[in-house]
């Protein structure tokens, strides 16, 4: 018998009517499918996505009032969870529904958290980390008793990080406690909806995908300027007058930057030009929370004409008044560009309006390729790898915190998460062994035991007091070591934070940009960088943590096609001329082939490899190729890498540069290079922290800086020396190969070209190679290694102090 399961009760219908609204078709469709075990709703921002997610809960609870937790809503942002409570409370109050809503995050008070566990609300709004904590308590089965629905918001964003993997593992725990629980995912437009559906659904169940009307195509253009963009660099400061004009012509503009440092410089220079004093704010992840909240509030109140921002505004509150998005610098990734553009024109059915501002000549081409990809609805995405095992290790610890567990049942549970469906029992057992004993090759130490087996075979924590330490270190967000920045003086205003390595390079009197103002470094006191205001000096560049992206594979392919046989008529004249000059002097890079140029310049031989493999991979290629050149006796001196190419300079030319791209030789070089590599050590630190080998927070600890714990680099070196097959080293390598080192892209590049290499020798610098000479981030080849660098610097310091040895 087929029957419409849930229709809109009169109280809801009346409420919609009284507001002059009608439910969207996809909202009704979600109501229809309320009993499916999993469903994924893909809708643009402003499409009433969250109401679509909640409507079945509100209707269900109205038709069948009950006690206890009914719906769990999970969002990646604390602010979103809090905001959702306000948004939900209003219709619930207006309709007089018998529904209690509460939110829970790291900011929630202890009293309220306790009350929530004792008497859970009907709808609880929370984050993955808070859910992990809730599930680590012994009373989790009681708290979640009767849970019917889980709504995961911004699933597309969560699925790109380990937070999503952790959440999916936590859902398997919940599913075991509440077998009837249904899952709903809410997502922005993504490249591969079926993959996201498999990620969400309990394996092997199917997940229905609902797509809301995506609305009209965005109006997207390149921002053209009278002055051509510079040859290299980022930041787009050359176009500040045009950006200000665009801001003036719109109500509210979001100006997105790819890095925090660039946002800071742009904001600073924007204000130097902003003679009309348009109210413009800045927002990024390294600014103090209070500062960010102030900007957000001003934005909601409609008091700002523009916000200069970074990925920190990719997600979050709907600001209905944003009518223009400006992307400064090449977007690197089409999917993110589309999601950013979606931040404008949040009214359903009005097209989003966006301007893309290339920061340099190469980016003109990339921006053009990206705009075409957006109009073609051709989104990019990396296929998901298997679920990360450091997250699994933490999950095993969380499970042990709540109650003794049976390994067979836990294995069955975790492999019901889509990302872990292919996990083998051997891999699971290795993780369990690591959590229980450290997993070292050297056995026979009975003291290395965190988990023990009961007589019935179930695993439990050896020392129950450990739960506190474990709970304090839950989560998969790894902060880089940062220090807070504060105005000097008693109760000085907090400004934000900078990376510790940057802070330690500061000497009193140095200036840098923070929140758009120039500040002067005074002292470092109790792990806080104390600064004062400073005007008129040229600031240094602050180093912030934050993600740096490489151009996606798909976008790189589009750039190559555009170069080789695309329509150049849409490109500005200066860029067209540059491309045809390259074609005359050398040749254009072609899809499926690799172009290598050799030319002399400034008394040195130069080799330029156009791999279009993204910055990380081109950087790795530079390191490996210069090693080979060292062996060939070519005397490499240094190199520089961009998303598109690697330029190497050396004493002698390389006669057969194609030989540098031998996969076997590259792999060999990689293995020895990885041994002592800062990127590997950073990956190791992340894995060691997530998997629970080391902890960041300790009960009753205050960071005093006294005899800080030793660095994880020592653990890395020790394991490499005595236990090279240890689980964490395996995980580290797997991860680094995909991410920071990105050897996968090099392999892909070589597989696609299958040895088809175009080698072009010219007598001078080629037009495409010229901008590379202006790039920052040149890497010297260290024949003698770190010690030589250090010796030069220490001798300089001694001489400066008049202490000649």
């Amino acid at each position: 018998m087929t029957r419409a399961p849930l229709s809109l009760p009169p109280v809801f219908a009346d409420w919609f009517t009284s507001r002059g609204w009608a439910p969207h078709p996809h909202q009704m469709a979600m109501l229809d499918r309320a009993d499916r075990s999993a469903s994924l709703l893909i809708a643009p921002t402003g499409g009433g996505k969250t109401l679509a997610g909640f409507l079945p809960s509100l209707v269900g609870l109205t038709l069948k009032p009950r006690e206890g937790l009914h719906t769990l809503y999970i969002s990646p942002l604390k602010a979103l969870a809090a905001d959702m409570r306000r948004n939900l409370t209003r219709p619930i109050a207006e309709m007089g529904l018998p529904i209690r809503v509460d939110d829970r995050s790291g900011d929630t008070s202890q009293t309220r958290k306790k009350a929530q566990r004792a008497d859970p609300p009907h709808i609880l709004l929370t984050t993955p980390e808070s859910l992990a904590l809730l599930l680590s308590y012994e009373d989790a089965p009681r708290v979640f008793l009767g849970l019917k629905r889980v709504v995961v918001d911004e699933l597309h964003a969560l699925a790109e990080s380990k937070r999503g993997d952790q959440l999916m593992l936590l859902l398997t725990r919940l599913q075991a406690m509440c077998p009837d629980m249904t899952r709903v995912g809410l997502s922005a437009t993504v490249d591969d909806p079926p993959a996201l559906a498999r990620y969400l659904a309990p394996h092997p169940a199917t997940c229905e995908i609902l797509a809301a009307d995506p609305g009209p195509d965005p109006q997207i253009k390149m921002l053209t300027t009278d002055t051509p963009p510079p040859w290299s660099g980022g930041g787009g400061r050359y176009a500040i007058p045009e950006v200000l004009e665009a801001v003036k012509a719109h109500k509210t503009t979001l100006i997105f930057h790819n890095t925090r440092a660039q946002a800071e410089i742009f904001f600073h220079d924007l204000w130097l030009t902003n003679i009309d004093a348009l109210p413009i704010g800045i927002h990024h992840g390294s600014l103090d929370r209070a500062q960010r909240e102030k900007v957000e509030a001003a934005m909601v109140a409609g008091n700002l004409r523009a916000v200069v921002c970074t990925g920190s505004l990719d997600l979050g509150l709907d600001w209905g008044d944003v009518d223009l998005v400006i992307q400064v610098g090449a977007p690197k990734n089409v999917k993110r560009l589309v999601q950013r553009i979606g931040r404008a024109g949040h009214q359903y059915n009005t097209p989003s309006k966006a301007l893309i501002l290339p920061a340099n000549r190469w980016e003109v081409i990339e921006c053009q390729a990206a705009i075409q990809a957006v109009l073609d609805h051709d989104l990019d995405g990396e296929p998901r790898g298997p679920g990360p095992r450091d997250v699994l290790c933490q999950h095993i610890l969380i499970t042990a915190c709540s109650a003794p567990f049976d390994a067979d049942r836990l294995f069955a549970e975790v492999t019901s998460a889509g990302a872990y469906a292919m996990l083998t029992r051997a891999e699971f057992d290795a993780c369990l062994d690591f959590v229980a004993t450290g997993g070292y090759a050297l056995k026979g130490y009975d003291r290395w035991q965190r988990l023990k087996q009961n007589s019935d075979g179930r695993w439990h924590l050896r020392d129950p007091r450990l739960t506190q330490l474990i709970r304090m270190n839950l989560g998969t967000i790894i902060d880089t070591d940062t220090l807070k920045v504060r105005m000097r003086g008693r109760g000085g205003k907090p400004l934000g934070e900078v990376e510790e390595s940057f802070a330690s390079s500061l000497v009193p009197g140095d200036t840098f940009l923070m929140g758009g103002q120039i500040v002067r470094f005074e002292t470092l006191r109790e792990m806080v960088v104390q600064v004062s205001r400073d005007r008129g000096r040229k600031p240094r560049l602050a180093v912030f943590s934050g993600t740096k992206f490489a151009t996606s594979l798909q976008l790189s392919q589009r750039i190559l096609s555009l170069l080789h046989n695309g329509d150049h008529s849409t490109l500005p004249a200066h860029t067209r001329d540059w491309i045809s000059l390259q074609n005359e002097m050398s040749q254009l890079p072609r899809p499926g082939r690799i172009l290598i140029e050799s030319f002399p310049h400034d008394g040195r031989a130069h080799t330029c490899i156009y791999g279009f493999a993204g910055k990380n991979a081109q950087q790795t290629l530079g390191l490996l190729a210069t090693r080979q050149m060292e062996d060939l006796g070519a005397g490499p001196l240094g190199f520089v890498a961009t998303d598109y190419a690697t330029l190497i300079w050396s004493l002698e030319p390389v006669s057969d540069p194609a030989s540098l791209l031998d996969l076997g030789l590259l792999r060999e070089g990689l293995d020895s290079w990885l041994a002592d590599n800062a990127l590997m050590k950073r990956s190791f630190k992340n894995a060691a922290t997530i998997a629970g080998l080391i902890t960041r927070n300790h009960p009753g600890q205050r960071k005093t800086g006294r005899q800080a714990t030793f660095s994880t680099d020592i653990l890395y070196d020790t394991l490499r020396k005595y236990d090279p097959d240890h689980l964490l080293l395996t995980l580290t390598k797997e991860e680094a190969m995909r991410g920071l080192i990105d050897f996968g892209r090099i392999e892909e590049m070589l597989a696609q070209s299958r040895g088809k290499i175009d080698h072009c020798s010219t007598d001078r610098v080629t037009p495409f190679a010229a901008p590379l000479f202006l790039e920052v981030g040149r890497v010297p080849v260290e024949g003698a290694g770190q010690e030589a660098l250090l010796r030069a610097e220490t001798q300089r310091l001694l001489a400066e102090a008049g202490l000649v040895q």
Partner: protein
Amino acid sequence: MSVSSPPPTLNCYAFRFADHDLTLLPSGALWWPDQDLLCVSDLHLGKSERQARRGGHLLPPYDTRDTLMRLEADIARTKARSVLCLGDSFDDLTAANQLDGEMRQWLSRLMAGRRWIWIEGNHDPGPVEFGGTHLADCLIDTIQFRHIADPQSSFEVSGHYHPKTRLSVKGRGFSRPCMLVDRHRIILPAYGTYTGGLRSDDPVLSDLMQPNALAVLLGVPPHPVPMQRGAIGE
């Protein structure tokens, strides 16, 4: 025997202190040729065992063997007839007593045939069940050896603080353990494999050391720099 080990002064930092010729080895050990004495501080043997025993962390159980291996290399290199361990040789007294058989034998082998002095530290404040001499502090010629520096003392060698220095070279940060030295005082870096450090610009160290003190960063060879100083007397 140890034909292949480098001559004791290659790649080392040689300096005068209290009218004696001393040498800092790349490993952080102090070598006093005239006394045939090798001095190492803060070995923290058994550190991973103590961490595991207390339940919180299961660190790789290879730190003790790594520390002993380096100590063995330094003894071979200098052919020292005396070894002075400047306190915190064991991460705690239980760690000393529970050192496993293989490590115990290894340590005994190193001790055999030479004078061995254990200075008490705050982690191991009492005699351990190994041979050698156990002392609270000791005076050799004009130099005083103790675990924690005494601000009143002159010509003194101590450890305890695990000093380290951070330098930024061409945008890259280097953090290295270091020896601090001025006319009156030497503070040795920690020798143990799993030992963190206290930055040399910490007020405690700035108070102890004179304004012209040097920090000698460990490396091959060690690199001397003017000691970084924090605000004094805070």
